[in-house]
């Protein structure tokens, strides 16, 4: 009796530890709850001028790193380089990695790049998440360190814009070197580009009702011309780049982070 009790305890603890290893690994990433609400986006919600209405959502506080992506590949062999069908990831998929399961010469804590939209979605699903929508990304990225919406500040706009003129001859540096923004989110600017779930929906007037010559202009980057917030070049550049991507392509500076819808019984519990 005396002997059995601690043994049972130890078994219980071991079981808990095992369970945590299985369940916890999927929930290890840090997510922050953002309230959303009415938001003036560069992309009007009605195609003309109305504000977007954003539901509350959880956003990963950091982009996905090479080390995190490697762990995903270890659990999901079908997403390893060489195993993925071309429609899901083209030849540039993880091309800088030394091997299918070796991210060197890239850094463990640097954001994973050269991932296709499909691969990014699959990673997020493995975290019980999805890619953020453009509106969600833009909402979170409107904040600087102190303000929820810093987009009226020309100094800040100039700062985030300066990143785009830096030469892109080195892979992106480590995640989290810069302070988090107002929401506790890191690296929305000045580190990488990021996939959004609706990358193939980022256009304004070009649709099936537009006929003739206007139709020829569809999706050729002309979309940005009718956007509402023309001062925020940094965000407009991102929009144009994403709109020009195909889902199986990647980019040396194109990474991603994930988002989640609030689960009713989890709401109010920050960073579970």
């Amino acid at each position, binding site marked *: 009796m005396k002997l059995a009790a601690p043994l049972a305890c130890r078994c219980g603890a071991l079981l808990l530890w095992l369970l945590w290893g299985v369940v916890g690994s999927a929930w290890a990433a840090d997510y922050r709850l953002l309230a959303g609400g009415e938001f003036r986006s560069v992309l009007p*919600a009605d195609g003309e001028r109305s504000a977007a209405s954003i539901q509350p959502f959880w956003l990963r506080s950091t982009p996905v790193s090479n080390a995190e992506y490697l762990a995903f590949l270890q659990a999901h062999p079908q997403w390893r380089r060489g195993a993925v*069908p*071309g429609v899901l990831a083209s030849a540039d998929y993880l091309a800088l990695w030394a091997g299918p399961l070796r991210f060197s010469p890239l850094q463990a804590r640097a954001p994973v790049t050269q991932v296709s939209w499909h691969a990014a979605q699959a990673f997020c699903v493995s975290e019980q998440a999805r890619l953020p929508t453009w509106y969600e990304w833009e909402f979170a990225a409107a904040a600087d360190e102190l303000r929820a919406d810093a987009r009226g500040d020309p100094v800040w706009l100039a700062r985030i814009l300066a990143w785009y003129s830096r030469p892109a001859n080195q892979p992106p540096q480590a995640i989290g070197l810069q302070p988090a923004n107002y929401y506790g989110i890191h690296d929305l600017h000045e580190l990488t580009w990021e996939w959004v779930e609706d990358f193939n*929906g980022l256009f304004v007037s070009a*649709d*099936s009702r537009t006929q003739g010559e206007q139709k020829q202009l569809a999706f050729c980057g002309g979309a940005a011309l009718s956007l509402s917030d023309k001062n925020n070049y940094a965000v407009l550049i991102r929009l144009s780049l994403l709109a020009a991507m195909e889902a199986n392509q990647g980019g040396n500076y194109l990474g991603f982070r994930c988002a989640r819808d609030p689960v009713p019984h989890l709401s109010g519990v920050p960073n579970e």
Partner: protein
Amino acid sequence: MNRVKRLRLALHGALLSAVLLVTPGVLPVAQAAPVNAALASLPADSLYGLAMPLTDAQGTRFDWREMAGKPLLVTMFYGDCASACPVLMQSLQRTIAELQPEAGALRVLMVSLNPQHDTPASLAHLSHMHQLDQRFFRLAVAADEGQTRAMAAALQIKYRALDNGEISHNTRVTLLNADGQVTASSTLLKPVADQALLLAVRQALQ
């Protein structure tokens, strides 16, 4: 020696099945293996590299890759679409009418852009309204927004839901060969058959 080997194998098997039972995401992969084996022979640029579970107007659940083996015309639309989609359907109906293919030689798959709204029942209603020929046309809907986006991405269809309930999208009809490779596509939006696409389908049917 032999016994040790067998024992080790048995132990290995037991461990493996234990891992398979416990680890999330591993078991579906193991189950998907036969499908992957069948698809392994597909060319590298086949769109059937994308798994896409759908439900059609009859409520039948299927993966669009099951339509491999015959040429397929595939496009996306949505039920409430009052302008472009009827034109698109008319164009596809004209295409079929001009081709007069044998039943089963060619299928037309139209997938909804609006999984929150379109259901097998609404698709069946739509099919009836437009008098779509059941021998060729199959209307279907994916499980959710993410799946729908993935399908649209593979077919180079761009769409965006506007806040008035409309979905802004481009109309693109893609012709896949038996292996799922893109052999032609059409973005023409007129209530007539696209002659270039028609020619490509004709060649595919020979």
